């Protein structure tokens, strides 16, 4: 049996998630915001993998879903960055607080 309790992994995931959240909501640089979102996804992956081992019915499914999440995250990062490029060409800035055209 493991000497590290499942709640320790969950707590770590929680801390990383909170850091990612705070970064995503406060940083001005859009690239950093994207990275912060990746961090949040990672925290979720930790949870998935933790439950795949320490859940009520341990199985490989948790790990498979962590893989899916990674694939989606990769796709998201690619598209997000492409959008950022496109925006930067038009506005010459990556500051997220200057991208407020949607309010009009």
């Amino acid at each position, binding site marked *: 049996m493991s000497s590290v309790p499942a709640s320790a992994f969950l707590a770590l995931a929680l801390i990383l998630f909170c850091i990612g959240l705070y970064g995503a909501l406060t940083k001005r640089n859009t690239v950093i915001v994207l990275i912060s979102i990746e961090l949040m996804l990672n925290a979720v992956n930790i949870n998935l993998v933790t439950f795949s081992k320490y859940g009520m019915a341990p199985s490989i499914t948790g790990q498979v879903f962590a893989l899916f999440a990674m694939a989606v995250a990769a796709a998201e990062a690619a598209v997000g960055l492409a959008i950022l490029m496109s925006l930067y060409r038009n506005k010459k800035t990556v500051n997220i607080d200057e*991208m407020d055209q949607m309010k009009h």
Partner: protein
Amino acid sequence: MMENAWLIPLFPLLSFLILLLIGKRLREASAYVGILLTLASLVFSILVLFERFTEPTYITKFDWLTIGDLHLTAGFEVNQLNALMLFIVSLVSFLVHTYSKGYMHGDERFPVFYAYLGLFTFAMLGLVISPNLLQTYIFWELVGVGSFLLIGFYFYKEEAKAAAKKAFIMTRIGDVGLFIGMILIFWQTKSFEYSEIFRAVEAGAVSQTMITLTAILIFIGAVGKSGQFPLHTWLPDAMEGPTPVSALIHAATMVAAGVYLVAALFPLFQASQTALLTVATIGAFTAIFAASIGLVQTDIKRVLAYSTVSQLGYMMLALGSAGYVAGVFHLMTHAFFKALLFLAAGSVIHAVHTQNIEEMGGLWKKLKFTGPLFLIGTLAISGVPGLSGFFSKDEILVAAWEGGHPVLFLLALIAAFFTAFYMFRLFFLVFTGEARGEQKHVHESPSLMTLPMLVLGVLAIIGGYVNTPWFGSFLGDWLVDGNEALGHGHIEGPAWIMIAATVVSLLGIYLAWLIYGKRSVARDWLSGAGGTLHTILLNKYYVDEFYQLIVVNFVKGFSYFLRFIDVFLVEGIVKGVAGFVQGLGITGSKMQNGQVQTYGAVAFIGLAVLAVIFALTGGYLK
């Protein structure tokens, strides 16, 4: 004929409506509309009056409002008093309509004037044929509106504006009393009908205290309308209106409405000795009070106005002394000679373009027609034997004496002396002596103005012979016929009263002649002797100033207090609420800034708050 009496008020209403619609196009021709339609009223009124001499009282009514078991009726009634009032009102109204054609000639708002006259005449005629209190009250207020409009006819003059407002507000104070009294009567008797009220009062269904209370409250309404003390101050100010209006409204008809009301509800007043005594006391006091002010006024119309107040006091005194016939009789004769005096005064003003009697003088030769007519009116109001005022005033004095009010009788006698004195002072100052002011182009008024005066002059002479101690009391017998509660047609009094009244009035005339006619007594003999008294009289006993000091300032202070509450408390709360909502809105709209991070932050903080609450309370589990 009597069943068609309801048409009488409708003619002036028709005139009002026509002039309202097409008056501007008719211009001066609108006078003919008014004159013809009031003539129709007059003819109908005369027919009704003559028919009423032989026929019994006619009354008809229909249900106006039905609320549960309650039936409010509307209709009209032709009894003796109403028929007489119809005749007086339509006659004076017709004469004033005719007179105004000359007097108002050239005025820009000529048709409007006739429209207002029509409205007023309608209201007044409607008032005198109302069979119940509610209808009376409606027309009572309409009369007030007509009066307000006509006093303020020269609304570009500040004084006229203020006078109109004053008249409206002062009479309003009385109307509140009338309104409360009316409601109390309705509460007690479950009816507004005069006949029902009298029946209930006679049957003792209403307690004595309640009768006294309602009678006095209704009398307060009459006090306001008839310019009795202490609500008399509006009437002299109302002279700012055109002179024909003063003759019609503020001498002959509307101010008599208060007297009419007391007369119409006379059985109610008779049931309470206290109410009668109040009416008599107020009347006598007003009579001498106003007469003493009239002694020193210099504005011709104001002298007449105070004389009107004083004469109305006489009528109230008569009614309060149970002299129903005397009061109504004086109401009639007063309408004739006071309208005559006002029209003559209007003619004088028309001629010399001033109202200050100090600037007149020596007009007797220049105004060959107006002068004698004015003299007739003066003699009549002074109570010189042979003219109408003599008989009616005598009746009142007898009623006061026989009614057991020696003090009031004495006051009335002194007031009679004052009346004779100030009226002849007026006459001598205006018509005799040398011209004092600048008088250019003094000319007699056109016949359109003198003819109505002639009619009134004749009536002022012969009007009294319908009820005299010598030739029979036809009017009195007729008025009380079929209604014993109203008292005797004629009250027999000791002969010395008549002699005393004659002597007193002749004394007043002689004194006036000494001072103003012959000038053997210096003019400042009296005012010099009682300097303070003269000043007090000149300032009308400072009643206006007293009201200003006490009532107006109090109301002003109170309204400032209320304004303070409104501005700081009510508005503060309102502004606070509005500001809060506005601030919320501004904050909310600032949130809408297009910043995704802000949106995310707000959404997340909301979630966090929920999560914390959930964690602390345990959600549904606890």
